[in-house]
C-alpha cells in the first residue's frame, strides 16, 4: 500500500488541544536547572505538560531537549556529578524531593530511546520483562494476555504473533522500535517519553511510528523529542522550542509553526539556522 501524500495528521484536522489555564497539568516543571559538574546544561525551565496530549520538544543539536526529557524520569541519575535545581512535579509531587523512589517513578514515566534497544531475548520475554520485574502479572495466562495487549497497542501483534518466542534481534529496525514501545507500554505508564524514536528509521517505518503516537494519545501523556520539525508539526498538539539550554517558546503547535511570538523561534522553524 502506498503511503498517502498528505499525512492524516495534517494540522487542520487536529484538535487544537487545551488552553493553558483550563486543565491541570500532568507534569509541572518550575525553574528547573541542570548541571553536569560545573556546566549548566539547562537553565530555569518552566513548563507544563498536559494529559492526553502529544507535546514535542524541538531545537538544534545540543540545545538540551534530550537532557530535559531525561530529567523527567530521572534517567540522568546514572551520570555522576549531576545537580538539579528547581522542581519537577508529576501529579503534584516533586520527583526530585529527597526520598523519592526512582524505581517507582520509572514505572509511571516510561521511555523509548532513539536507537531501539531490545534485550537479546525473545519477543515475548522483551515485553514481559517490565511485567515480571514489577510483579504485575498474576499468573502465566495473565502475563500472556498483557503481552498480547501491549503488542497490539504498538501495532506489532499481527506481524509477530506466530513467532513470539523467537529472538527479538531478528526483527527489522522499525519492528524493533515498535517492540520497545510495546515493552514500555506493557507496564501501563501514565507518561511515555520518546527520545527521537524514529530518527533511525526509514520513512515508511517512521510514518507507522507517527500513526502509533497519534493512536496512543487518548490513553497516555506523550512527550516526544524530535529534530525533525515536520514530524513535530504532524504529530504534536503542543511544541516547546529549546535553544542553548533555555526554553525559548512553548505553545500550541499550529501557533509555533505559523505565528511564533519569538524571533528566534521563527528563525528556527523557517530554517534560518539549526
Amino acid at each position, binding site marked *: 500500500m502506498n503511503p498517502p501524500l498528505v499525512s492524516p495528521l495534517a494540522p487542520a484536522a487536529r484538535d487544537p488541544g487545551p488552553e493553558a489555564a483550563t486543565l491541570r497539568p500532568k507534569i509541572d516543571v518550575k525553574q528547573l536547572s541542570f548541571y553536569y559538574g560545573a556546566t549548566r546544561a539547562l537553565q530555569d525551565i518552566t513548563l507544563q505538560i498536559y494529559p492526553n496530549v502529544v507535546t514535542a520538544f524541538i531545537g538544534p543539536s545540543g540545545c538540551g531537549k534530550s537532557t530535559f526529557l531525561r530529567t523527567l524520569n530521572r534517567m540522568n541519575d546514572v551520570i555522576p556529578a549531576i545537580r538539579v535545581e528547581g522542581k519537577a512535579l508529576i501529579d503534584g509531587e516533586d520527583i526530585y524531593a529527597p526520598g523519592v523512589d526512582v524505581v517507582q517513578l520509572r514505572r509511571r514515566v516510561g521511555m523509548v530511546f532513539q536507537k531501539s*534497544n531490545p534485550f537479546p531475548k525473545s519477543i515475548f520475554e522483551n515485553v514481559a520483562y517490565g511485567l515480571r520485574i514489577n510483579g504485575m502479572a498474576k499468573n502465566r495466562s495473565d502475563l500472556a494476555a498483557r503481552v498480547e495487549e501491549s503488542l497490539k497497542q504498538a501495532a506489532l501483534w499481527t506481524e509477530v504473533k506466530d513467532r513470539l518466542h523467537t529472538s527479538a534481534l531478528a526483527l527489522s529496525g522499525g519492528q524493533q522500535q515498535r517492540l*520497545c514501545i510495546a515493552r514500555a507500554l506493557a507496564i501501563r505508564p501514565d507518561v511515555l517519553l520518546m527520545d527521537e524514536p524514529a530518527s533511525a528509521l526509514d520513512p515508511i517505518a517512521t510514518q507507522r511510528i507517527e500513526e502509533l503516537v497519534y493512536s496512543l494519545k487518548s490513553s497516555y501523556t506523550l512527550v516526544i523529542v524530535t529534530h525533525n520539525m515536520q514530524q513535530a508539526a504532524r504529530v504534536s498538539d503542543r511544541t516547546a522550542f529549546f535553544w542553548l539550554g533555555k526554553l525559548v517558546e512553548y505553545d500550541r503547535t499550529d501557533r509555533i509553526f505559523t505565528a511564533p511570538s519569538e524571533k528566534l523561534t521563527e528563525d528556527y522553524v523557517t530554517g534560518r539556522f539549526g
Partner: protein
Amino acid sequence: MTRDVRRRFVSAVFVAACAAAVLLALIPLAMILFFVVSQGLQALNVAFFTQLPRPVGESGGGMLNALVGTFVLTGVAALIAIPIGVISGIYMSEYRGTRLATATRFAADTLNGVPSIVIGIFAYAVAVLPFRQFSAMAGGLALGVMMIPIIARTTEELLLLVPGALREGALALGATRARAVFSVIVPAALPGIITGVVLALARIAGETAPLLFTAFNNRFFSTDLRQPIASMTVQIFTYAISPYEDWHRQAWAGALVLVSFVLVCSLVARVVTARVQRLRG
C-alpha cells in the same frame, strides 16, 4: 648493489625470517602432537579407562582413579572459582574507576602471574598443615585459586562489551541496578562467560605443580574430599619419571587423553563464540 636493491633485499630477508620463525615454532608443536598421538594410541585401551593402577612392577592396569580424580578436583575448583570470579568481574565492570575496582584488577592480574607451585605452597599452608594431611579439598583449593583471576577478568571484559543501551532500557522500565545487572546484562554476556569458564577449566585440568603437595596422589579409587586423590597430571608425572616401560606408555596415553580434552574444550569454545556472533548479527 644500489641502495634500492639493497633495501628490497633486506626487506625480503626479513619477511623470510618471520615466516621461518612461524615454521620453527610449528615444529615442536607438530612433534609433540605426533608423539602424543602415536605413543598414546598404542597404549590406550579399555583397561586404561576402567582399571586402577597395578602395583609397582606389574604391567597393565589403567588410570580410572586419576580420571575421576581430575574430574573431582576441577569440580571443587569450579565451585570455588566461579562464584568469586564472576562476582568480582561484575564488580570490576559495574564500578569501574573506583579504587576497589582498580585494586581488584591489579590483584587479579598479579594472581594470574603467580607461579602455580607457589599457589601450591599457599594451599598447603592453608588446607594441608592445619589438618595434617593431604586432601582433594586442598588440591581443589589450589586449582580454584588459579582459576579465579581468569574468570574474573574474562567476565569483566565481556560485561563491558554489553551495549549501554541495554542497561538504559532496563532501568527505564523500573529495574533497580541489581535487577538490570542480573536479568539483562549478565545474561547478555553469558555465552562468553561460559566459554571463559570452560577454557579456564581446560587449563586447570592440565596443572600438575600445585597438586604435588596438596592433593598428593592415591593409588586407590577415592572421591573423599578429605583424603589424597589421584589426578591425571600427577599420575603422568609419576609414571614418566619412573624406570618402567609400561608406565611410560601409560603416561603417553594419559597425555593423549589430556590433550584431547583441552582440544575439545578449545574447539567448543570457538564454535560457541562464532555462533553467538552470528546470532547477534
